[in-house]
């Protein structure tokens, strides 16, 4: 199932791109993040807590950023593992200048495995949207913070 | 060993204190600490109703609460409903109408039905079916369960009338 959405950030693409590549910013913005550390170039180790419907879990995983085009786009490969299952995703972020800010278009195809697939699969669309809303609203705050 | 916590509750009229882990569900407390194995576990998402008991007079799926939440409560399980020679009208109804086959869902069915009859002593067929939506039975097709509840409602009404006549 392809999930997608877009969010407007009141900040130019160069700033948004920098924020999206700053581990400290990300660890403040990614919902449920417990830890997020740089683990080589464009590669992070993370621990997040996520609830998908009735299934809650602490996920350990890796995020790798590839196909980076400065201030324009990047691809994220996410692999998370927990006792309640596995969540992998390949996602893209595209930054588009618009008026006095940036529209971030995101798209991704999550792959759920194990118990989270059996009880959470039909909820993933809604969960992803909520998580994305949370992420981008926090990113907006970060953008304001940096600019002020 | 894991942390434990003292819990005191009255089950089928007997008050006792045990020390489960805080995360122990009421159903596991009843089965494992008190040996009341008539209350069954049929699922892990609170749908099947096999674990239904009464907590302070209300039907509760005992997999949906922790034992510690029943601190001080009055709990009734199927073992407290009646025994051979002194059966509850619902136990008799299920027996007479062949309202059970494998018997696994039966305790939960009886506890849910008892809750229904306490609110609605003369339910229609559709009210019975609606009230038992939260209890799964894979054997009976619910046909004789409906009849069992009707049978019990009828006999409870009759004994209430006899009681009234005596008074």
């Amino acid at each position, binding site marked *: 199932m392809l999930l997608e959405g877009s969010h407007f950030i009141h900040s130019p693409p160069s700033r948004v791109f920098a924020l999206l590549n700053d581990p400290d910013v990300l660890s403040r913005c990614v919902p449920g993040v417990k830890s997020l550390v740089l683990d080589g170039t464009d590669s992070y180790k993370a621990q997040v807590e996520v609830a998908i419907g009735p299934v809650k879990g602490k996920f350990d995983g890796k995020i790798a950023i590839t196909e980076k085009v400065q201030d324009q786009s990047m691809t994220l490969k996410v692999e998370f593992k927990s006792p309640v299952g596995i969540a992998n995703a390949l996602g893209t972020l595209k930054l588009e200048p618009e008026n006095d800010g940036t529209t971030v278009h995101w798209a991704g195809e999550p792959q759920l*495995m*194990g118990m989270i697939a059996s*009880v959470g699969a039909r909820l993933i669309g809604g969960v992803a949207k909520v998580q994305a809303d949370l992420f981008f609203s926090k990113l907006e705050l970060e953008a304001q913070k940096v600019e002020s | 060993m894991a942390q434990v916590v003292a819990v005191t509750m009255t089950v089928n009229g007997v008050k006792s204190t045990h020390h489960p882990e805080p995360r122990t569900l009421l159903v596991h407390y009843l089965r494992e600490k008190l040996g009341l194995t008539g209350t069954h576990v*049929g699922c892990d998402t609170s*749908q099947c109703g096999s674990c239904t008991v009464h907590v302070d007079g209300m039907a509760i799926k005992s997999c949906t609460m922790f034992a510690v939440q029943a601190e001080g409560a009055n709990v009734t399980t199927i073992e407290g409903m009646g025994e*051979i020679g002194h059966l509850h009208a619902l136990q008799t109804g299920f027996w007479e109408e062949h309202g059970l086959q494998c018997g696994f869902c039966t305790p939960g069915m*009886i506890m849910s039905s008892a809750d229904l009859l306490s609110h609605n002593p003369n339910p229609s067929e559709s009210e*019975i079916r609606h009230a038992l939506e939260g209890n799964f039975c894979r054997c009976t097709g619910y*046909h004789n369960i409906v009849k069992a509840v009707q049978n019990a409602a009828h006999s409870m009404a009759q004994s209430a009338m006899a009681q009234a006549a005596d008074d």
Partner: protein
Amino acid sequence: MTEKFFGKAVKRVEDPRFITGAGNYTDDIVLHNMTYAAMVRSPYAHAKINSIDASAALALPGVLAVLTGKDLVAAGINPIPPGWLLPDLKISAHHAIQPDKVTHVGNIVAAVIAETRAIAEDAAALVDVDYEMLPAVALGSTALAEGAPQVHELAPGNVAFKWEIGDSAAVDAEFAHAFKTVEVKLRNQRLVPNAIEPRSSLADYKRAGDEYTLYTTSQNPHIHRVMLGAFIMGIPEHKLRIVSPDVGGGFGSKIFQYPEEVIVLFASKKLNRPVKWTATRSESFVSDAQGRDHETVAEMCVDADHKVLALRVKTIANLGAYLTTFAPAVPTYLYGTLMNGTYKWKAIHCHVTGTYTNTVGVDAYRGAGRPEATYVLERIMSRMALELGVDPLEFRRKNFIQPDEFPYQTPVALQYDSGNYEPAMDKAMAMLDYAGLRAKQAEGRKNGKYIGIGVSTYLEACGLAPSALVGSLGAQAGQWESALVRVSATGKVEVLTGSHSHGQGHETAFAQVVADELQIPMEDVSIVHGDTARLPHGWGTYGSRSAPVGLSAIKMASDKINDKAKKIAAHLLEASVDDIVHEDGKYQVKGVPEKSKSFFDIALMAHLAHNYPADLEPGLEATHFYDPKNFVYPFGTHLAVVEVDANTGHIQLIRYVCVDDCGPIINPLIVEGQVHGGVAQGMGQALLENTVYDDNGQLTSGSYLEYTMPRADNMVQLEIGHTVTPSPHNPLGVKGIGEAGTISSTAAIANAVIDALEPFGVKHLDMPYTPEKVWRAISASLPQAADD
């Protein structure tokens, strides 16, 4: 006269323990020093196991052991074999714990044993398995496609077997001159059996004597003893006791040999302590063998008189990742042979391809092959009637095998020994007021009220038999049944039967027959089952065999008791054995009622042997092993009435009439109960239940949140009737009834839904008929001006 119990609605003798919470299910058993097992299951549908790191799990206080597949292989534990073989069958190795590779979500990769259930589950979550994900395939037809992921190397193209029955050339010849032909494409969706009691196993190894006891949720304890003992673990059978206590429903899913039983036995010996495992429902969804899952193309043709000519069926049967115990038999001998139904075909051909996929194994689920066949046959019969513009019941009537045509040889191996189909149909039509309802249906359609009437004039073959035939078809088991009738010195009777009861009421129905045969009170008879240490070898309960096979054995063992009792009576009464009659509960000299001995007198003397025939053994017990001569062939007519809400697509079952012929009825309460439950399960398939795997082999309907179980408000009170056509070859004339409801009802309800949707031009939809699916079908048929 003593009281006769055969035919009476005797209240069940097993119920008092169940209604008071005193049932004894496997998970209720607690043994001294017991430990608990939790399984580590694969979240991947297909993956290589690179490594397993159990250090964190082992470090948790209370953890006793973490077992992996390599431990079992090193100890010489063999994979779990299938119990039925077909020619050129590709058998995948099904290890209790997979050592190298997983092939479905839920496959076991490690087992944790700990002091408590909670610790075991905590530790299982800490076992770190490094997997290398492989591409997966979930649908049978996808698995057969070019370039599909390979589930097992030994089965190229994912083909486990190809099987056929019937005469394909004869079928072609009939199609060549047919008046009309129709084709249907059917998906018989996968179901999860969902006995409400999850599986549970408790192993207790005793060093003294090197003996194992396994308490387990089983329909057939002796099959486990043979498989576990002889084939998997190398335990001598006399050192392995299997106890199957109260079992909370089976529906087929508790026939099979499962990995967890191997694991707890192995662990119990390793730790020298009892080990219990009980499935969570989430585990049941990914580990209990599932049912159905066919993709079928069927074609049939008729002549100008609307007489059926030929039927051609091609099916892809999705077997899942492993061949479970009876998996090869279900879509073949229990499916293709049933294609004839109650009709007079000139030719039939059925071809089945069994495929491996990255899904849970598929095996017998209530009806096992026969519901799938009945669905194909009854759907295509109704479709043909629709295409011909004739009434679906009259079309069937025209094509029934007639009562004077038995024994009837079908083109697909079975020889029906008896049957009389029209009276059952007439009775069902009368009960429903079929003609009146058709008129109401036509009237309703004018006012936007859409009801549908569906029919299934099913036949089923059960009480699988005889052993030699079944063996020649690939069964690795006998299909006879045992009974031991043991009379105590005080005349109390224990009946030991290989048939297992897990809801069927054997303790009552069997006792009724024994009480009649021995002319004693029912309370003097107890039925014992489910313990290999107490019983003679028996084959258990499945395929509606308990009454026709198990009870026949009991009846014949009871006859032996009576024969011996007459000899003892003759001796005591100084009469000839030929002059002794068994009447009024006494063995008496014919015509001289005052010269008689009671059952008690005989039992006592058989044990004392003080005044006793010189050439007769003391004691009073008899064993009989009954191997039936043929299957039995129950049949009937089921009529379903549904109403569709055209605005929402919601389908409601509003009436259900069934007339079944299972021969003489021992206990009407029990027989009707079997029909009720069977119909509800068939309704579940038609309207509610679906097992959904995504393209990666992930089960996305793995809990009761997603998998729609039949609930009280999905059902109606059923209207039940019977006709009685006894089986000519077993001593009581009885035929099975445990599966008939399921076999017939899915097709009847499906036909009713399609009939209801006829005004919308819908000729076929695949089950389950969920509101969304029905609404879409209705919407697609409506003119596009609905916005106004």
